[in-house]
């Protein structure tokens, strides 16, 4: 008599259940991994976008700086973490305040970001020496630190 195979045997059930469990675990863990990667990619892309926005503003300010004619030197501010200069006939300020970088245009804060981790400026005279007291700067080098690895240096004529 031909044997009918209407039901699974015990071994088959054990094998299929363990395979199914393995797949379920694999599926959920891979989903978790995807979600984690997704979040980190999302964060990174937003971070890079924010940095791009900051660089975008800085580039446009630096390219259009009022070299000559420019306002009297009394109106400028030259300190290590605060600079006031004129670009496109607008008063521009870069300041590092409470661990946040601020870009102020004509007295209004236009950009405030914690993406810039550190910001420092060095001033030079026409002899390419670091600026002494009571001297007028010829140019400055601004260093923007975006994270521990990447920093950007911008040279700006004043």
């Amino acid at each position: 008599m031909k044997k009918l195979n209407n039901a699974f045997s015990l071994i088959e059930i054990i094998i299929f259940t363990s395979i199914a469990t393995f797949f379920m675990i694999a599926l959920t863990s891979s989903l978790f991994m995807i979600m984690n990667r997704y979040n980190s990619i999302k964060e990174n892309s937003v971070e890079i976008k924010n940095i791009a926005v900051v660089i975008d503003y800085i580039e446009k300010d630096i390219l259009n700086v009022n070299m000559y004619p420019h306002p009297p030197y009394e109106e400028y501010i030259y300190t290590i973490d605060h600079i006031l200069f004129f670009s496109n006939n607008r008063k521009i300020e870069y300041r590092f305040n409470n661990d946040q970088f601020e870009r102020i245009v004509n007295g209004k804060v236009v950009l405030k970001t914690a993406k810039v981790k550190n910001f420092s400026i060095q001033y030079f005279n026409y002899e390419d020496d670091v600026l002494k007291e009571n001297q007028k700067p010829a140019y400055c080098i601004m260093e923007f630190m975006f994270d521990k690895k990447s920093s950007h240096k911008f040279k700006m004529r004043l």
Partner: protein
Amino acid sequence: MLKKGYILVTVLLFITLLSTAFSTVLLYVTYNFNRVNKNIVFIKNTEKLFSTLEKVKEDIALYKDDSYTSSCGGWIPKLTGYDCSVDIVPEDSKIALNLIDRNALKVFLKDSKIDVDITKTIWDTGIIDATPDIEKIFSIYKVPNYNVSDEKMILEYYKLLPYVTHNPEFITDRIKSYRTRESYLKTDKLIIGSDEFEFFRSYFPRGKEDFQALCADYMGEVNLNYVEEKVFFFYYGLVSPEKDSQAQYYWDKILSYRNANKSITEITAIFNQDNGRFKKVFGLDSKLFKVSIGYGKLRLVSIVRVYKDRKGINSTFVFTNKVWEEKYERKKNIDIQ
């Protein structure tokens, strides 16, 4: 034998889940990187503009004294061989708005019915940006001419320059000492000649004495080959005696050269013998240029000055730069209308 497997719905669900997750990530990344990409393109294009400017500066510096005049148009020949569109116009054949005698300027503005507020400070560029017609006549980038410019304005000018380290009042006091007579503009000679001009070098920082040639002049910088009618009449009136009525005669002479498509190569060709007074203001070459370079939608405008160092080698210096995207400019124009 029957093959066992996942049912179609489960497989589809799984694939959809995966593809949705991946495409969302991709969308997010591309959305955010679009800004980055724009920024990279902007930086790349501006680099191209500035590298072209460097080439233009080298080419301009190649032209020696008095060779700026050409048979066509009356100044340096058209420079070719650039990837970008390059347009070079002399900037010094205009009235030095910030440096010229205030009283003479007031009379000129009244006569020609031009509305410019000259009480504004030297750095107020807004007064020029207003209308292109005014920009044709006035320049805010011209350097002082020791024989023509107002002493007070020269002092204000030097206070704004970072490379005059000594007290700039020394320079203006010395200029004053040469200008014994009040009518220094009307004298028939150069009060400050080449020897006197050399002396001023000592007021500039050691090693940077060549800046003297960069930010000052004593001879005429208004290029007769390029000068506008209003500018010519203004400068002529500035240096000639009050009863002089030869201006129209000289202007017709200049026009005859232009109509014949010839350039003026000697100042005596226009002003016969008594050219001493005119040498103060008029010349035959240009040293200050407005260079505008276009690449795609980006445009760079630079004011470049050519000057000679002590060894007689031409050097160039950029006074100011301006970069903008033309679509914004068009929008701005529409707003004004």
